[in-house]
């Protein structure tokens, strides 16, 4: 009895010893720092000395007010610009990477296809390469007289100077459709606005420069998500598909009614990871554009970094990080809710259908 107890005690000690280094490091470089940053976000600390010294000014919610409040100046319009840019970025990257990943996974999932390994490797490889290296390659590909423009030139298209082009794609599209003249924005849009940006600025869409980063990220991340879809597709028993085919369902019908519902959990995973990842875009902006041209590639993550480490405005920068955290959290929750809700709705609809079918069968019998 005593032996058992001492063994249990020994186990408890071993357990704590085993997790202790991890706990200490996570606490030291994660939990406590977050609390420190929370404190800093309520101060006007300028990076000199300790942020906990007695002379540091506690400013309450001023930093947050400067970012989203009524009369924020340049800081607010910078922050709103970064949110706008990142919003368009997310809006394009998440659907594109999910669609391409699913598409490639479906193509690779065909039976009788040879060299699956080769293609899978080719598509996945960019995911493991450093974002810095890939950014450098894309800087060259999309440079003024670079690879992409030479290709466009060959088919008679005059390519833009990608990284110097701050024109918004929606502005350009509207211009092309004759909705407005991009160099003379309609006064209805240019005069009004909210939170430091005019409606015209809000509606710019991603700039040409930002669209290069969008292409780069879709290109790199698609492979990872493709693997997730492929794994899920392999779990789908072949006979289910075959049974549906024998029942007379066409390719599209099988995809819609069998494959897609089966992929729903993976879809949730992929879009959640995509959403969380895309709101954090930093590396590519740091290497390729530093927020330019015309602040059209500024993102909250990069802005927070540059306010803190370059301009020593630590309080505002920390506040930005926390707002970004809230955005990511809210987006991920919202998305979970949307998916869950649909599941429940679908379940209800199915139930109704079965009861109806049963009733019909009953009456027929």
């Amino acid at each position, binding site marked *: 009895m005593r032996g058992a107890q001492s063994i249990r005690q020994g186990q408890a000690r071993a357990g704590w010893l085993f997790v202790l280094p991890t706990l200490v490091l996570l606490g030291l470089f994660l939990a406590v720092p977050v609390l420190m940053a929370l404190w800093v976000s309520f101060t006007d600390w300028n990076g000199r000395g300790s942020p906990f010294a007695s002379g540091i000014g506690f400013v309450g919610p001023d930093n947050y007010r400067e970012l989203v409040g009524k009369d924020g100046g340049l800081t607010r319009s910078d922050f709103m610009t970064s949110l706008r840019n990142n919003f368009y970025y997310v809006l394009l990257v998440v659907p594109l990477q999910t669609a391409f990943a699913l598409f490639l996974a479906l193509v690779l999932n065909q039976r009788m296809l040879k060299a699956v390994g080769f293609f*899978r490797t080719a598509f996945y490889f960019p995911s493991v390469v450093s974002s810095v290296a890939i950014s450098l390659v894309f800087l060259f590909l999309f440079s003024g007289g670079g690879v992409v423009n030479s290709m466009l030139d060959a088919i008679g298209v005059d390519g833009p100077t990608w990284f110097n082009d701050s024109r918004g794609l929606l502005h350009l599209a509207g211009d092309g459709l004759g909705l407005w003249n991009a160099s003379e924005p309609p006064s209805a849009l240019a005069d009004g606005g909210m939170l430091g940006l005019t409606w015209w600025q809000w509606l710019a869409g991603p700039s040409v420069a930002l669209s290069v980063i969008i292409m780069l990220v879709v290109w790199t991340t698609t492979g990872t998500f493709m693997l997730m879809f492929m794994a899920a597709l392999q779990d789908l028993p072949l006979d289910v598909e075959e049974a549906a085919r024998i029942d007379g369902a066409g390719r599209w019908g099988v995809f819609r009614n069998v494959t897609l519902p089966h992929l729903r959990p993976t879809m949730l995973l992929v879009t959640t990871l995509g959403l969380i990842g895309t709101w954090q875009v930093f590396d590519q902006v740091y290497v390729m554009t530093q927020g330019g041209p015309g602040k059209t590639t500024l993102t909250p993550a990069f802005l927070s970094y540059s306010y803190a480490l370059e301009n020593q405005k630590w309080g505002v920068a920390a506040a930005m990080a926390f707002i970004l955290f809230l955005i990511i959290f809210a987006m991920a929750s919202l998305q979970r809710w949307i998916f869950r809700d649909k599941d429940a709705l679908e379940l209800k609809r199915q139930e109704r259908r079965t009861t109806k079918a049963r009733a019909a069968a009953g009456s027929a019998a």
Partner: protein
Amino acid sequence: MSTAHTRTPDTKPMVRDRTALWLFLGYVVLVAFAFIYLYPFLVQLTTSFKTNTDAVSNPLSLVPDPFTTSAFGELARRDFPLWFTNSVVVTLLVTAGRVFLCSLAGYALARIKFRGRSAIFTAILAVMAVPGVVLLIPKFLMLNYLGIYNTYPALVLPLLVDAAGVFIMKQFFESIPESVEEAARIDGASTFRIFWSVVLPMSRPALITLTILSFQGSWNELPHFIVASQDSDLFTLTKGVATLTSGQLGSGSQYPITMAAALLMTIPVAIVFFVFQKYLVRGGTSGAVKG
């Protein structure tokens, strides 16, 4: 039933034709995408052996004319070797530390019964959910507070543990049959002894997966190194090479040099990738995803 039978002979060739057509379309799509995925790497490879004039005037050509290794020579004269060494040291330390600490913690959470275990596990799950970019400023604050900003430990220590790694190892250890450990325990082996000489040797696949993920993660890490130091002696590859676009080389038009740098920093990851691909493919779907 009988109608289906009579229909089979003449529908079958059509079905086969259709399948062949789909297969053909599949190949067309795959080859097109493979071009989009491989061409940038070919450009990177060949441009690094070009002269700057050649790179600018014939960007599409995949044949360097003239062939030169001057970009690599130029990199060797600059700080590139220092960055490379720093990256190797940091990556080795981080990888070794992560594999050891994550397996220790993962084992405790999977197998050792002690009070507070489930609370710790919940805390680790919560940590996994914190977006990394939000931690940049907090990390700087702590490094600054501890007085290790701008030192080697600042590059390594915060990367030493990875909540996702703990999670992966815990999942794996739970899949090992407990009977093996019990036999060793009856023989009087200590918990660490059992972990070290019985469980770890059985855990090769998980250990390899974690090693690769840690290697790749720390080799490619950029934001942490940006906030952990500013001393150019402490530049790692990612941070140093990122300066090539703006700082040292002026307008960043020296494409062969940047391409050579990108190539050299890709090679170690590429080797690991091709050697251990099956582990990476498995781990990539369970571990973190970069944005």
